[in-house]
C-alpha cells in the first residue's frame, strides 16, 4: 500500500510520488503488453483466442494499487490487466500466453487462465460469472483470519447478468464478508450492448438491491477509480461487508482478437482512444498539478517498452512443455 508524503488531490487517498510513478508504470505496462499482443497475434504464433484489456487499465490499477499480496482477486477471460496490476510477472505471463513450459501456469492455462497464488491472484476465468462465488469463498477466509484482508471479483457488464453472480452477491451480503464486486462496464458483452442485456441499465443499482453499497466511477480516470474504490475497500477492511464498484469504461479492441466489431459505430473506437485514454489523462493530470515531470514518465515509457520486448523475445525463445506434462497436475495425490 502506498506510503510517504501526500501530494494527492483531495478526492484521493494519500498518493506519494513513488505511488504515482508506480501506478503509471503499471498502467503503461498493461497497455504495451496488450498493444504488443495485438501485433504478435497476427503472426499466428500465439495459440488460442485472446481478449485484450487495452482501454481499461485505470480500473485494474486503480483497484489493485489499494491491495497487497495478502488480498485476493479473481479475474475474467479479459484478465491480463488484472494479472499485471496484481503483480504477476510479465515475462511469466507472456510465456504462458505463448504456451511455454516456464509460463506462469506451465503452458497449461493460456491467456484465459493465468493465476499466481503468491500474489493473491486466484485465477483468470473463462466462464463468465465463474469468479464471484470464488471471491466470496476467499472473503470467508479473509474474515476468519481477521487480518483485514479483502477479496475483489472483477467482472464485466455482461457478467452482471449471470445467476452465479447474483448468488455470490447475496451470499456476500448475508455473510457480511469483505468481497468487492467490480463490474467493468465497457458497454458490450461480446457483440451485444450493455444497454440491451442489463435490463435495468444500472448495475450499481442492482447491487444496492442486494443490500450493499455501490458506486459508479469514471473507469478512464485512475484517480476516480482509486478514490472511490478506496472508500469501499477501507469499509470492507473495517468489517463493513461487501460493496460494488461499477466503473464506466470502454475497450479499445474487439471482444477477442479478430472481432470485426460490426456492432460498434464507425469511428467510435478512434474517438474513444482520444477522449477516454487513461494514460493520457493521468499524464495530463500529474504534470498539470506539478506532481510529476514529463521526463520521468517518458523514462517509464521507455523502460516498459523494453520490458515488453524482453518478454516477447523470451516467450518466443522459450521451450514448449514436454509431452509428459500432459499427465501431471491433475491431482495433489492419486
Amino acid at each position, binding site marked *: 500500500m502506498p506510503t510517504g508524503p501526500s501530494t494527492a488531490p483531495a478526492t484521493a487517498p494519500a498518493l506519494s510520488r513513488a505511488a504515482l510513478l508506480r501506478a503509471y508504470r503499471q498502467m503503461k505496462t498493461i497497455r504495451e503488453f496488450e498493444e504488443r499482443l495485438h501485433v504478435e497475434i497476427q503472426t499466428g504464433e500465439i495459440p488460442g*483466442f485472446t481478449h485484450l484489456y487495452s482501454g481499461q487499465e485505470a480500473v485494474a490499477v486503480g483497484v489493485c494499487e489499494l491491495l497487497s499480496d495478502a488480498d485476493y482477486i479473481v479475474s475474467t477471460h479479459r484478465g491480463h490487466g488484472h494479472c499485471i496490476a496484481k503483480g504477476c510477472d510479465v515475462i511469466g505471463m507472456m510465456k504462458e500466453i505463448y504456451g*511455454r513450459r516456464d509460463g506462469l501456469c506451465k503452458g497449461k492455462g493460456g491467456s484465459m487462465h493465468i493465476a499466481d497464488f503468491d500474489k493473491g491472484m486466484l485465477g483468470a476465468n473463462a466462464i463468465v460469472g465463474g469468479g464471484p462465488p470464488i471471491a466470496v469463498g476467499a472473503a470467508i477466509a479473509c474474515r476468519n483470519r481477521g487480518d483485514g484482508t479483502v477479496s475483489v471479483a472483477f467482472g464485466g457488464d455482461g457478467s452482471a447478468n449471470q445467476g452465479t453472480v447474483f448468488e455470490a452477491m447475496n451470499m456476500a451480503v448475508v455473510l457480511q464478508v469483505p468481497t468487492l464486486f467490480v463490474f467493468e462496464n465497457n458497454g458490450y458483452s461480446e457483440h451485444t450492448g450493455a444497454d440491451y442485456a442489463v435490463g435495468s441499465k444500472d448495475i450499481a443499482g442492482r447491487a444496492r438491491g442486494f443490500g450493499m453499497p455501490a458506486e459508479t466511477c469514471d473507469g478512464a480516470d485512475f484517480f476516480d477509480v482509486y478514490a472511490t474504490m478506496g472508500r469501499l475497500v477501507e469499509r470492507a477492511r473495517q468489517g463493513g461487508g461487501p460493496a460494488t464498484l461499477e466503473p464506466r469504461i470502454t475497450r479499445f479492441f474487439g471482444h477477442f482478437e479478430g472481432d470485426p466489431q460490426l456492432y460498434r459505430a464507425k469511428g467510435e473506437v478512434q474517438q474513444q482512444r482520444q477522449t477516454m485514454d487513461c494514460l493520457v489523462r493521468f499524464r495530463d493530470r500529474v504534470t498539470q498539478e506539478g506532481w510529476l515531470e514529463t521526463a520521468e514518465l517518458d523514462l517509464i515509457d521507455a523502460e516498459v517498452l523494453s520490458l515488453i520486448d524482453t518478454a516477447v523475445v523470451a516467450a518466443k525463445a522459450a521451450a514448449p512443455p514436454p509431452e509428459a506434462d500432459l499427465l501431471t497436475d491433475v491431482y495433489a495425490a492419486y
Partner: protein
Amino acid sequence: MAQKSMRDAINDALHLEMARDPSIIVLGEDVSGGAGGTSGEREASGGIFGVTKGLLPKFGDRRVIDTPISESAIMGAAAGAALAGLRPVAELMFADFVGVSLDQIFNQMAKFRYMFGGKARCPAVVRLAMGAGMNMGAQHSQTIYALLTAVPGLKVVVPSNAYDAKGLMITALRGDDPVMFFEHKALYPRKSEVPDGAYTIPFGEAALVREGEHVTVVAIARMVPFAEKVIDALAKEGITCDLIDPRTTSPLDEDTILESVESTGRLVVIDESNPRCSVASDIAGMVAAKGFHSLKAPVQIITAPHTPVPFARELERAYVPSPARIEAAIRAVLKD
C-alpha cells in the same frame, strides 16, 4: 447437390425448418448480435460460430432472440417455451457452459415427460459447440456428450459431417423430445455433399462410413475423419475395416455395432472424451455384454487421457487421439 460446410448445413436446416414451422424459435447469446450496439447493425454476429446467420433478418426478433449471459435462464426458458408449445433451439455456445446451466437440462427438461406421467412434451433442441484442437483451454474445449448421454430423457446427437448434421438437425426439430446437439468446432468448416431441400436422418441409426473385413472401428464426431484417413491408408496394405459413426449416442445403434463385430471379431472405439464413464467405455461394455462370443481380441479403446484439456499446442496435440494412435490400435487389435 452442393458442397457445404457443416456450419452452413446446420444453418440450412434452421432456415428450412423455421420457414416450415412457425413454432420454432432460436435463442442464445449473440445468436444475432448487435442488440444495444452503437452501429445499428442488427445482425452483428449471427452466432459466435456463424451458425445462426441470416435468421434474424428473415424471421425477426420475436423468433430469433438474443439473450443476456444467463445460461440457466436460457436453458430453462427453452424448457418452458417447449412445454408451452414452442420448439426452441437454444444455443449454449460452448458445450462447457453446461456447467452453468445443468439443472435446467438435467433435472428439468430431461425429466418432464417421465415425471409428469407421459403428459409433458418438451421439444427443445440445445446446440453445443464442443471439442479440442483450437487451443481454447480447459474451459472451452471439452467433449462432454457422455455426461448427457447418461441422462434418461435426453437424446444426444454427435454429427461428424455436414450431410448428417443437416438431416439430424431436421429430425431433432421435428421430434418431441429434448435433444442435445453437439457440434464439433473443428468440423464446422468440413465440407460434404448436402442436398438443398429438407431431409431427415433417424436417430439411433449409425452410418457405415467404410466397409471392411478385419476390424470394426467405432468413432465419434471429429474422430470419424481421423479414422477415415487411417483406414484408407491401411486398406492399401490389405487391412480393411468397418467404420461405424453412431451419429447419436442416445439412442445408440447397438445392432449395427454388434453385427459388424460379429463379422470382424475385433473392435476399436475412438472417442475424444476423457476415458472414465465415457461413450467409448459404454460401447466397449455393451459389446462385452452382448457380443462377447464374437470377440477374438480385447477391445481397444482410444480416448483422451484422464486430464482436463491443456492449452499449449504441444500438449493439446498429445491430448487429442491422433491418427497415429488410431493406427496403432487397429494394428494391435489384429495381433491377438
